[in-house]
């Protein structure tokens, strides 16, 4: 099994910022993302309750460098006023090249 190390960036955000977040992520170099609807609770109270649009959890596997770019951008642009959190983890992926922009082997 030939794996490569990448970063898994997870963003949990209220629905209103979803599309802007997705655009940014891909603009900053992510080659893909996986998304699901979630409900959550945090310092701003409940989010994604039935009667409002569900919050989303966005996961993207990227290089260390792009991960930082994404995290920084989200922090600066959304933290102050939106229900958004970001966290990073290491992952080993197969087909590493898949997750690096213009497929430079990772």
């Amino acid at each position: 099994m030939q794996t490569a190390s990448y970063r898994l960036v997870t963003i949990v955000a209220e629905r209103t910022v979803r599309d802007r977040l997705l655009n940014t992520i891909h603009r900053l170099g992510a080659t893909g993302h996986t998304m699901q609807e979630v409900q959550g609770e945090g310092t701003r109270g409940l989010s994604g309750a039935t009667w409002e649009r569900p919050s989303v959890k966005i996961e993207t596997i990227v290089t260390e460098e792009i991960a930082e770019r994404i995290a920084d951008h989200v922090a600066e642009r959304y933290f102050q006023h939106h229900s958004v959190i970001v966290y990073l983890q290491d992952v080993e992926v197969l087909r590493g090249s898949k997750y690096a922009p213009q497929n430079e082997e990772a």
Partner: protein
Amino acid sequence: MLDVLLASLLSPVVLAFVLGALAVTVKSDLEIPAPLYRALSIYLLLAIGLKGGKALSETPLTEVVGPALATVGLGILTPITAYTVLRRLGRMDRTNAAALAAHYGSVSAVTFIAAVTVAQFAGVPSEGFMPALVALLEVPAIIVGLMIAYARGERAGSWRDAMREVVTGQSIVLLLGGMAIGWIAGSEGMAPVEPFFVSGFQGALTLFLLEMGMAAARRLRDLRSVGMFLVGFGIAMPIVHGALGVWVGGLAGLSVGGAAVLGAMVSSASYIAAPAAVRVGLPEANPAYYLTASLGITFPFNLTVGIPLYLALAKVLGG
């Protein structure tokens, strides 16, 4: 008056709302799947639009102009009154006051539907084109509310994004879109879809209010955090705006039923379009305030006491 109050209080629609609230109170595991709730709200908004559009296609424009202008006027005035009350009497900060103003100036589609049903039932049906007025009332107040906030320097949110959110929001698209469809298709074209959108309407609304009752009850838990003033505001403001709406509606040439429904519309507070826009335009405003007030206090008040009240008032003024 009393019989109408009872009739509306004891309609399945209102009772379903109560049942939902009870279910939350007894900690029942009853849960309306979120997709069902969303499906119902899409259905209801589209159905209102379709009905309104069909009615418009059969109404001479001249009849609509007066009420339309009156509605827009109220949509601009009421956020200002709300803002003033909140700032002067409530000593509330500008941001939250503006956010609440946007909500109380705008309209709650479900309150509208309930009012139409009650008026119907009370033997004073409202004009068929009323849904058109809902679309007209929804937007301006939100814009005014945000303008008040933006008029005061630096903002976290984006004015453009907020405007886009308002005019391309699901409720506007479905209301206006439905109206366009109903208007173009006319009564002949509408016939085949009416079993689905017309006959099924009241039942779907019942199911919808079951969840509304649950949501409202959950919201009530935050009551403490919002303070007594907001509770009072959530009851007094609708009465004032409602009376104003009934009165202006009458002047604009609406029937007794129409004036009552307009009163209910004006008194109601948006909890779908406005929150969406405010989250974008005024993210620093506290949802606990505007959601608890509009969903937890004003909506239940109007559904139970408010609507019959406006109807009675309309009868007095109109008769």
